[in-house]
């Protein structure tokens, strides 16, 4: 076995509140291997994006700081790197695409200039080479007539095309890890399908590992090899996508899958009510408690769940942090 590309060990990210530090990421461990696609799923406020920002070395000082644990990228601990070391990795070996491409592209520069700029900064390319490579990258992300479109400004492109430009920027330096945070949420499903195909092909061709953050279980099923389900800053469940979706071992995972109406192979007249996961994600005040933080919304919860944090239990390659994992 080769070492994983990325190994997160017991990561703790703290938010400093007046009442004291709150763990918004609490004892999170996971691994990402070269070439694989790992999905983070969970409701908003569960720490998916926070984890991604930590991997990017982009935790805003005011929002949170690493309070413990290690983020090992190719064996080096990013949690202990200085800003210059992080800058050398960010956008180069690890890059990220966000949900809203319009806010991450600069409206006053052409898309070609924005791609070329990354190449000049990280690869030291000259103006002409960078421009040529920018055109090739736009072609690679399947923007029709790339030669003519490199001179376009972001507002001259459709939402799907802008997201492709973001992908081109993210892939400009052939990163080892691409983090995609809800990359298709603002796009039509037909465009989403094109972007997903593109990400899959690029992953296959370049060996880039992808972290896909999404709330869409269908997207996870189609795109990812493995998944991590997060709840209130903790890992609820982890494992290969197929067994986790067909037999979740955590009631939260089960709830996330069954509360969504899916498209099925053959639709029937039958339409029972959706399974409800009552309530909402707990407020930050209760993060860090020695308890299962899902207990207040769980149909199985008992005194043990409310009074002790459940350890991770393994079922083959699958793990679940639930006291009742064996009977879920």
């Amino acid at each position, binding site marked *: 076995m080769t070492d994983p590309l990325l190994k997160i060990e017991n990561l703790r990210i703290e938010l400093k509140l007046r009442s004291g530090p709150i763990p918004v990421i609490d004892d999170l461990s996971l691994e990402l291997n070269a070439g694989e696609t790992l999905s983070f799923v969970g409701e908003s406020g569960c720490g998916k994006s926070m984890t991604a920002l930590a991997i990017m070395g982009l935790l805003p000082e005011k929002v949170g700081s690493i309070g413990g644990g290690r983020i090992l990228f190719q064996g080096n601990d990013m949690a202990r790197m200085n800003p210059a070391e992080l800058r050398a990795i960010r956008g180069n070996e690890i890059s990220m695409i966000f949900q809203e491409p319009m806010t991450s592209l600069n409206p006053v520069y052409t898309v070609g200039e924005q791609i070329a700029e990354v190449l000049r900064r990280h690869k030291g390319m000259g103006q002409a080479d960078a421009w040529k490579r920018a055109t090739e990258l736009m072609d690679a992300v399947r923007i029709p007539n790339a030669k003519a479109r490199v001179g376009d400004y972001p507002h001259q492109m459709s939402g799907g095309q802008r997201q492709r430009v973001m992908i081109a920027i993210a892939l400009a330096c052939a990163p080892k890890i691409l983090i995609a945070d809800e990359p298709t949420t603002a796009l039509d499903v037909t465009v989403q399908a094109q972007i997903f195909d593109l990400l899959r092909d690029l992953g296959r061709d370049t060996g880039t590992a992808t972290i896909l953050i999404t709330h869409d279980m269908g997207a996870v099923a189609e795109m990812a090899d493995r998944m991590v389900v997060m709840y209130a800053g903790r890992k609820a469940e982890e494992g290969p996508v197929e067994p986790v979706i067909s037999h979740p071992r955590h009631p939260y995972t089960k709830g996330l899958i069954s509360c*969504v109406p*899916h498209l099925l192979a053959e639709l029937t007249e039958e*339409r029972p009510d959706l399974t409800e996961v009552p309530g909402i994600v707990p407020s930050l005040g209760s993060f860090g408690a020695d308890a299962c933080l899902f207990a207040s919304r769980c149909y199985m919860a008992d005194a043990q769940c409310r009074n002790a944090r459940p350890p991770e239990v393994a079922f083959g390659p699958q793990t679940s942090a639930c006291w009742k994992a064996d009977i879920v």
Partner: protein
Amino acid sequence: MTATLLNVENLSVRFPVKRRWGQSTWLYAVDDVSFEVKRGETLSIVGESGSGKTTAALGVARLVPNSAGHVVLGGEDFLKLEGEDLRRARAKIQMIFQDPYSSLNPRLRAEAIVREPMDSIGTAPVEDRPARVAELFEQVGLRPEQMKLFPHQFSGGQRQRIGIARALSTNPELIICDEAVSALDVAVQAQILNLLRRLQRDLGLTYLFISHDLGVVQHMSDHIAVMYMGKIVEYADRLSLFNDPKHPYTKALLSAVPSVDRARKVERMLIPGDPPDPLNPPKGCRFASRCPLVEDACRAAQPPLDPVGNDHRVACIKAS
């Protein structure tokens, strides 16, 4: 047979758009669209961004200028009403919007928000309104003590419940839900979808439902209209649309949806490119420029929305 509540005939909505050199032109966001909705049922409108879903809904609710056609609700043409008749009819159509954050007045208490349409349209007698507000809070699953709170003191899902209570306050017959659950997390979305269906059963409501999430549409609808560039390209009952789509655009749309159902291995039908410029729509079928089945005849004339079965209509000359 269920009776038709809403009959939309040849509805068009156009927007004035400024062009270069001070010229202006019209953008036909909804172009000669007809459909009906049966009482107590849900008709969903689907289609890509900019296809005209919201505009069609606003046209039905008479909330945009420059509409033409007929919106016949319970026998009268809503677009032709005026004065007191219009005010009375307005009570029958209510809307629920996508954004539970911006669609509620932040300075009003929840009870005032829910009561407001009753006051402005003058449905219930003044002395009955407080009791009606309390009843609505209960119907949507909010607690009585929450009536005094302001919007920012509620979660997203609770705000959407306030929006629903407000929409119900005038005893409407038709409720238009425009992306009403799109901003919510999946668990909360399920709570709201179940609430909407329960209210429909209990109160006999009719919904015009707009969503870009085809799984949600599958769950909520009795009939579905698929729009492309201001036109309805397919209209069908739920089972026909999802199990036997006929229009190439509908097929592409459905095949693009990722699913957890491993048996649902549809062959992905990719449609290349972007839709044409809406200010300059093609003369023939509007989907022709992206359609894998296109032939010369498609570009020559607009295909009519013709029946291909019971309750199933398609605007495509290649569909049958």
